[in-house]
């Protein structure tokens, strides 16, 4: 089965929780970063968004959560819909209250606060919640965080990532956006973190948009996938389709098909740019 090469990204899943329609993002009023990006996240599924450095993956997440203003960026065209509601202009804090939570690149841990304080801030958008009981729930997924009583800045990279995900759970979100959870982690830890991501998706029914450079890992846990280049989606399909796609194997998964000489590969890449 051939994946859908068209940049519109339509015709994936039926029940969509988030759809990004043809958005354009401009920084400092001159630098065009996203040029007509479309994607959909299916309810209860994990959707992977892959791409190389500078493709605009993080910008996409910040556009969805409206965090661009702090970096002098803005969405100049297109709409973002969450649960059939236009959230293009909504403030970041209102979006968190609606159930969309971003786990930022580099984890976004408040390093000068304790683990418990970080977790309590995760529930900031839900005043009056039974926070202590919920923290115990989070510790069920991340038992090793329970023993860490010091400042979050002293946690290891893996523990910080787990804290960031645990903090997201405290907001009781319907949709979690994750920006490179594998960044700076050892292969074993990456496996553990992705295992947890899959458990959260299956056990709690949280939809996840997973932005990754580690295409191999991401496609293994995801249901659907998108590949972006230069601020546009260039390829989409189910994770299985993408994994079997020759181009994806060649560019993102490493080694695909029979070995070719260096010269062949170079010409092949030039011929097959998805643009």
């Amino acid at each position, binding site marked *: 089965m051939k994946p859908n090469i068209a940049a519109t990204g339509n015709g994936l899943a039926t029940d969509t929780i988030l759809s990004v329609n043809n958005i354009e993002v401009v920084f400092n009023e001159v630098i065009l970063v996203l040029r007509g990006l479309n994607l959909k996240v299916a309810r209860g599924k994990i959707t992977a968004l892959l791409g190389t450095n500078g493709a605009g993956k993080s910008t996409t997440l910040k556009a969805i959560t409206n965090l661009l203003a702090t*970096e002098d960026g803005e969405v100049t065209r297109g709409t973002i819909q969450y649960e059939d509601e236009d959230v293009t202009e909504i403030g970041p804090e209102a979006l968190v209250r609606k159930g969309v939570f971003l786990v930022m690149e580099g984890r976004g841990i408040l390093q000068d*606060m304790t683990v418990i*304080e970080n977790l309590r*801030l995760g529930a*900031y958008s839900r005043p009056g919640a039974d926070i202590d009981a919920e923290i115990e729930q989070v510790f069920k997924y991340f038992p090793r965080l329970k023993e860490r009583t010091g400042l979050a800045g002293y946690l290891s990279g893996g523990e910080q990532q787990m804290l960031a995900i645990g903090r997201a759970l405290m*907001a009781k979100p319907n949709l979690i956006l994750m920006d490179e959870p594998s960044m700076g982690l050892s292969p074993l830890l990456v496996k553990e973190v992705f295992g947890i991501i899959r458990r959260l998706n299956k056990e709690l029914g949280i939809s996840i948009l997973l932005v990754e450079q580690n295409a191999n890992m991401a496609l293994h846990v995801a249901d659907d996938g998108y590949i972006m280049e230069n601020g546009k989606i260039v390829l989409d399909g189910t994770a299985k389709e993408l994994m079997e796609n020759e181009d994806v194997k060649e560019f993102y998964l490493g080694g695909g098909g029979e070995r070719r000489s260096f010269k062949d590969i170079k010409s092949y890449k030039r011929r097959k740019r998805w643009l």
Partner: protein
Amino acid sequence: MKWDLLFQLLVNGLIVGMLYGVVAMCFVLIYKSTQVVNFAQGEFLVLGAWVCLALVTNMQLPFFLAFIFTLVFMAAFGIIVQTVILRPLIGEPIISVIMVTIGLSIFMQSLMNWIFGNDAKRFPDVFGTSDIVSIGGLNVEVAYLLSLVLSIIIMGVFFWFFRFTRHGLAMRATAFDQQIAQSLGISVKQTFAMAWAISAVVSGVAGIVIGIVNSVSNSLAFVGIKVFPAVILGGLDSIVGAVVGGIIIGVLENMAEYVDGQWLKIGNLYTIAPFYVLIIILMIKPYGLFGTKDIERI
């Protein structure tokens, strides 16, 4: 050596220093959460004192009622200053923000001069504050004891607020990184307004206390200037540092007075000593005792 005078000055220094610490905390709170150096902190304090005094003497309100009204007024005032004057300046260069707070300080000074007059006025003796009690051979005015107790209460409340309450944690998160705070669902605008409100309220309380101890006049704004050595000593972005810095400056002032009165006979060492400390600290430890060093991101 006059030991009892020395001891008396030491206690005075401690009590005054605690008050400096409280005002320094207000200053640090604003700097830490909104990156604004508030040169009008001293005027905030004077405004609180004047408003309370006016409510007590002109409107004939009982002191506690006047006190509560003053706090409400100061909270509203802080929020208005933040939203009307400083919010439009978000993202502007730091020098513009500094010029605006200096302007605010001058504006408030003239306005208060116009409304409340230039003379010092005393609070009516509400609860026998000028009585003198003797504790362990020391003669301490009740007003001083009152200010000591209030300072400790305010510091305790600050500690509790930032450690255990939802809004306190949100304020610390905003101070650490605004984007992270936003991603957690914290409204940065609301947090900024709250920081100014709290700072204005606590400055107002300090103003009332100092007004009761001394008397109310526009020159009370000197505390706002004394706060700078305290804050620089403690570290610009450390609440604990503000308290420690305040106490050190208070004690140092009084020790300078002792040394001056006993031996040097210069006559004004009391006022200038804190600023010598300021200069020395800036030379040897520019980030202060508890301040975080700025790490430039590459």
